[in-house]
């Protein structure tokens, strides 16, 4: 009773065993490539670069957007986009700025044209971005004024993500390579 049973099972067992070994090899290779892909330093760096760029672009947009009808929320988002010295400046100048905007009754909006990270130090948590913007300022009287803006931003990584620590316009006229 047991012998015919063994004769059937033997090649089957060998096939199953071979299949299992092959599957184990395949799984090992797959797991290894998954692990290396997930722990790839260059990939992690690339992801950090894109995070810094996205945060920088959004922060620069925020800092160029302000509606006098909703000034509290606008200036809150300014403060929230910045850190360090830039944030201190924004917070210190907030009341004065609020008065100015309410007097001028302007609405500013910004459109992102392009942006790139120019420097990234993931260890120090610092990055530099250059961002091309189109800013539209609408005053109560007259046509909306459009202008292109060449922004240079410095970003610092905080527990709440990348935030702007410095922001300025690229100067015109005194060409210095950078």
């Amino acid at each position: 009773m047991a012998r015919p049973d063994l004769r059937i099972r033997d090649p089957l067992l060998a096939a199953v065993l071979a299949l299992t070994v092959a599957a184990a090899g395949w799984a090992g290779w797959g797991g290894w490539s998954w692990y290396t892909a997930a722990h790839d330093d260059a990939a992690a760096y690339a992801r950090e670069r894109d995070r810094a760029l996205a945060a920088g672009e959004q922060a620069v947009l925020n800092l160029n957007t302000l509606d006098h009808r909703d000034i509290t929320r606008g200036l809150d988002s300014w403060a929230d986009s910045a850190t360090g010295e830039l944030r201190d400046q924004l917070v210190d100048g907030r009341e004065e700025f609020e008065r100015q905007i309410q007097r001028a009754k302007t609405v500013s909006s910004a459109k992102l044209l392009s942006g790139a990270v120019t420097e990234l130090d993931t260890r120090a948590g610092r990055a530099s971005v250059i961002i091309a913007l189109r800013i539209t300022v609408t005053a109560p009287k007259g046509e909306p004024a459009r202008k292109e803006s060449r922004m240079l931003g410095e970003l610092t990584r905080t527990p709440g993500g990348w935030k702007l620590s410095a922001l300025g316009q690229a100067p015109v006229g005194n060409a210095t390579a950078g």
Partner: protein
Amino acid sequence: MSTTRHLINRRRRQASALRAREGAPATAPGPDAGPESDAGSPKADPDAGNPEAEPDEPVPEEASPPSSPRRHALSVALSLLPALVLGAFAVVAGGESAALGDEPAVRNAALSDVARTSELKGRIAKAVESVFSYDFAAPARLDRAVSEHLTGGAVAAHRRMLAAVREAGPRQKRVLTTTVTHSGVEHVDGERARVLLFADQSSTRTAGEKDGTTHAGAMLAVDAVHDEHGWRITAIDTFGAGS
């Protein structure tokens, strides 16, 4: 206490006993089966006088033939389980690692490939400076720069952008100088790239009504391809501005 299994076994035995007695086909006890078919009645149990039926053996002749191949199939399926689990893991792991490598962020080598990024930035900055610089005394230099650094649609776009400068240049004795002040690689993936540049342009006219030098800031993004000549610009995006 008789369990359900005992009950079923007893019913089978009763049925076969009945069949043996009456020569009837073995079926479930029908209404004519008489009082013997009444399950649960110890008095009707024919096991007492039946030597071939052991009370603890659940009729092997009937149970064995259908269950043996089935059990065999089950054991084969079970032995395949580790291979299936490992195979499933391999498929998932392969998919995950491919997805990680195929992520746009990872394929973009801007900054993460330092050498390629700085080579690209240098080449494109030089290209932009030379194709947006003009000297009325040496207009052929611009033509050489165009054929060296531009290709595809960028050639026609550039011709439109500099048409006015080229036309009025000799008369105005015009010198246009473009200096790239900032540049950043937006993305570089294999042979294709996009670079954002900020530049200063100074324009000097030494003849005509309006003498003097003007400065302007410009921003532009260019698409580039890498071929046997190195990086060349295929498209110039001035974001809707003049030049």
